[in-house]
């Protein structure tokens, strides 16, 4: 059964779908169903799978950022022990393998519409498994060796001789956008692939003319990488008897990988089975197919044996999809009282060597005005190719970037005008009475109590005691700073989801097409299902990640999973109860209206019949039922839901800087996050903590640095890429606000990304506040390392 579930039906509210449902499991901090296997070493990560006669693949990677491939000599490698094959882009072309179609341009009706220069279609490059013409970034696979052992494959890869002609290259975002920059793709006149402008230009220009204050800022959101601790891996197998492929590969959605990889291989989707069980971290990094996924399946067919690949950490640093890398120039116009009148923004996103996702640029573009009522805005969004690994959505795709811009701009406005930074925000926050609120670039925020969030966070952080603590810190020779940021973000994501709800002898199974990487879907979806069907949490099990069982589904990204899952499960529960009543009515030869569903039992009063789901399961097995009720007590439901939701909140952070070293210690970190309905607070808090770590990591330590003279990435191991660790993060004070979203039955927003979204801004704000007495307002580029702070302090001392 298909249905489109959209809000504006006459008088019907999404929450009507769960009317009368008593919430028992929902809202409880229940322990996770996932944990037992993971704490006993029984997890099922990709590299945990092995097949008989399995062989190993190793990639030969380009050492140059941009080079023409002149010749690849396989002979020496093929002569080495255990080597079964060496494959190049020419071999892929000869077999008709196609480029991966990532569909990178967001296309739901709520996404801003990104276009190429001069309103042309966006040219997205060709993401082939192995290139035939050129290598376009350091680390691009140009050949694959398959051998009987991993060590043999590694040694043979070193023996593959590739003759390159080095070409001019560009890695830096602004340099890549220059008209005379070396071109990554000859198909385009420059590297600029997106150039689109949104908003009301005339009204914005007028507001800027009439403004009492104009504040300008230019900032760079550094490039980072996801570093999921499970290195990406893939195990491919071809079965000649069924002419079908099997791929074990952790990702952000097996159904998507199946569809895209079948296209690459040139076979029907049903000829590819993808298994993605436990996934060792994703954060967006794994949401797009990697070339090795297609390569291991193809090589398995060519060689007649299963082929496995597991990246070394160095390969992950070079060729996992990376994130952020945005330059933003923003301006804010205010009247004499601090009321925001209009803003202008110009965002330039570096997509790397080919375009796998424009989600970060698109998502950010829809939120440039943040949590504030700004009547007019103009935004120019551009994206540019460069000779670097492709960028993709990374936790809270696009939103930390724009929240950084607006929040830092407000701090700057406060300094520039002498107004209080809290009061300036308070004056301009969107009020609950304005909801639903349409922002100046057309995004409609569903709900939220922004000022209440802010006041709650200020109270938890003991804002009024700051000056006392600052004075105490000064006595200890430390500079105390407090940062603050409000945020709003959008959760959109793939609009379709499917649930199969199946009653078994002793449990209820829900099959669904999301793909967790630690978010606890098996637990929170079971909580939702248990309440909807009035069974116990222990009786519900969720099945995910095998495309032979999970036939459809949108995967996990953009905070979509719980909102989509709870909605489609709510719809399925209604259908399943209806079917169950029909089965019992038929069985008892009673009128349908005489069957009630009370406290988890199907009740027929006149015959004193009371059957649980599991008793009715037996009836459904044995009763003589008409065709439409046969096949067991189960239901399949599809749903399509486009309306986005807007999680929001406030974050405060207190730091101390040691002026002798520039070292920073985070003393206190407070987050208030409106996630809509919270299904499991244990899980939501965990998501917040992890999200904060990603944001703080980017602000203080993380950076995918490219050596400017050579184009070589300078991150090759965990020694080069600094990350959040036990000893550089504090414990957090995270609180949940639940302002129910009117857009879906349970009122869910999202909880996975709110920790990250304001964290960049709040750290920069805290550093600036700490340095203010000595340096005045400063913007230290991220990552804000001790040496940069120390240098700023030295400079201030000299002046």
């Amino acid at each position: 059964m298909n249905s489109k579930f959209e809000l504006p039906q006459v008088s019907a509210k999404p929450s009507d779908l769960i009317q009368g449902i008593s919430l028992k499991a929902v809202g409880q901090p229940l322990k996770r169903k996932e944990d037992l296997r993971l704490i006993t070493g029984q997890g099922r990560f990709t590299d945990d799978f092995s097949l008989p006669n399995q062989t190993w693949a190793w990639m030969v990677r380009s050492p140059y950022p941009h080079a023409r491939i002149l010749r690849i000599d396989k002979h020496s490698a093929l002569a080495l022990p255990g080597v079964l094959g060496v494959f190049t882009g020419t071999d892929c072309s000869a077999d008709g393998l196609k480029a991966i179609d990532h569909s990178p341009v967001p296309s739901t009706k709520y996404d801003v519409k990104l276009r190429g220069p001069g309103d042309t279609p966006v040219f997205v490059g060709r993401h082939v498994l192995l290139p035939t013409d050129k290598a376009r970034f350091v680390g691009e696979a140009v050949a694959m060796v398959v051998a009987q052992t991993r060590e043999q494959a590694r040694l043979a890869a070193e023996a593959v001789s590739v003759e390159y002609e080095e070409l001019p290259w560009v890695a830096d975002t602004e340099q890549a956008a220059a008209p005379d920059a070396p071109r990554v793709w000859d198909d385009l006149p420059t590297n600029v692939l997106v150039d689109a402008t949104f908003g009301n230009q005339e009204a914005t220009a007028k507001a800027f003319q009439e403004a009492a204050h104009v504040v300008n800022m230019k900032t760079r959101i550094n490039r980072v990488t996801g570093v999921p601790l499970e290195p990406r891996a893939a195990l491919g197998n071809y079965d000649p008897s069924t002419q079908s492929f099997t791929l074990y590969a952790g990702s952000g959605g097996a159904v998507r990988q199946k569809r895209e990889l079948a296209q690459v291989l040139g076979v029907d989707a049903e000829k590819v089975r993808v298994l993605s069980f436990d996934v060792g971290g994703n954060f967006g990094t794994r949401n797009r197919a990697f070339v090795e996924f297609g390569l291991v399946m193809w090589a398995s067919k060519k060689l007649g044996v299963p082929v496995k690949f597991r990246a070394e950490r160095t390969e992950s640093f070079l060729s996992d999809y990376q994130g952020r890398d945005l330059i933003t120039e923003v301006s804010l116009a205010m009247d004499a009282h601090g009321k925001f009148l209009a803003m202008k923004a110009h965002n330039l996103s570096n997509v790397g060597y080919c375009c796998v996702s424009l989600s970060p640029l698109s998502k950010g573009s829809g939120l440039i005005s943040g949590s504030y009522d700004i009547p007019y805005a103009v935004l120019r969004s551009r994206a540019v190719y460069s000779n670097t690994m492709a960028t993709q959505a990374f936790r809270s795709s696009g939103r930390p970037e724009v929240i950084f811009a607006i929040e830092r701009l407000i701090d700057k406005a406060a300094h520039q005008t002498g107004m209080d930074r809290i009061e300036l925000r308070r004056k301009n926050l969107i009020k609950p009475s304005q909801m639903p609120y349409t922002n100046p670039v057309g995004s409609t925020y569903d709900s939220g109590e922004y000022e209440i969030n802010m006041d709650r966070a200020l109270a938890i952080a003991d804002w009024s005691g700051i000056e006392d603590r600052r004075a105490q810190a000064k006595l200890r020779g430390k500079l105390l700073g407090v940062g603050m940021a409000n945020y709003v973000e959008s959760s959109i994501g793939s609009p379709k989801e499917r649930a199969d709800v199946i009653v078994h002898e002793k449990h209820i199974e829900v099959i669904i097409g999301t793909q967790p990487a630690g978010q606890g879907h098996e637990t929170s979806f079971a909580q939702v299902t248990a309440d909807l069907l009035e069974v116990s949490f222990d009786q519900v099990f969720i099945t995910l990640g095998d495309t032979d069982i999970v036939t459809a589904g949108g995967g996990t990204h953009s905070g979509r999973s719980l909102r989509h899952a709870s909605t489609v499960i709510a719809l399925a529960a209604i259908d399943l109860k209806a079917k169950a009543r029909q089965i019992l009515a038929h069985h008892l030869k009673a009128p349908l209206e005489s069957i009630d569903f009370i406290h988890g039992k199907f009740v027929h009063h006149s015959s004193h019949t009371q059957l649980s789901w599991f008793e009715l399961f037996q009836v459904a097995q044995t009763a003589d039922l008409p065709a439409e009720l046969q096949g067991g007590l189960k239901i399949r439901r599809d749903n399509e839901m486009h309306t986005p939701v807007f999680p929001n909140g406030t974050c405060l952070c207190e730091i101390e800087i040691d002026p002798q070293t520039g070292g920073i210690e985070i003393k206190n970190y407070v987050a208030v996050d409106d996630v809509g309905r919270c299904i499991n607070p244990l899980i939501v808090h965990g998501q917040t903590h992890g999200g904060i770590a990603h944001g703080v990591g980017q602000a203080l330590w993380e950076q995918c640095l490219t050596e400017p003279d050579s184009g070589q990435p300078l991150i090759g191991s965990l020694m080069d890429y600094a990350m959040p660790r036990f000893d550089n993060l504090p414990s957090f004070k995270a609180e949940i606000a639940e302002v129910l979203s009117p857009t879906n039955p349970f009122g869910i927003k999202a909880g996975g990304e709110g920790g990250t979204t304001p964290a960049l801004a709040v750290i920069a704000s805290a550093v600036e506040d700490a340095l203010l007495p000595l340096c005045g307002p400063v913007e230290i580029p991220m990552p804000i390392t001790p040496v940069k702070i120390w240098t700023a302090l030295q400079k201030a001392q000299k002046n």
Partner: protein
Amino acid sequence: MAIIHLQVNKQVVTKDVPDQTLLIELLRETLGLTGTHTGCDTTQCGCCVVLVDGVSVKSCTVLAVGVQGCQVTTVEGLADGTNLHPIQTAFMEHHALQCGFCTPGMMMSALDLIQRHPQPLTPEVVRSEMEGNLCRCTGYHNIVKAIVSASEKMHAANPASLAP
């Protein structure tokens, strides 16, 4: 090739392995104990930590021949049948794992840490001592809580001997 004798999770193991075989390769590929994970290949992430004679060791940087005659404990050897070890229970109760990939190494390092300290651990000590294990999901907050809690329970239950 080298013949090695050792005990893994109290089981006697004798194997003939190539000289360059790493302990983690012996565990995962020869013995099928896939609970111990390779996260970085270079001794930096701690996903591969096991106990060798009760001491935490990063098994990605130890040769299998180097543990000749030793007792190796992996995550699979923590529970006693269906009775979970207190460190496992604490990780579950405090939601100290999300994706679960770092968790086995994290628990093994934590066990070593608890055993090395005569008193229950403080959060400060945990944060300082666990620095060699990385987690990308939890922000460490709940792992610190879990390890402190496990140390309290283990000390209360059996202060004399904390061997797993």
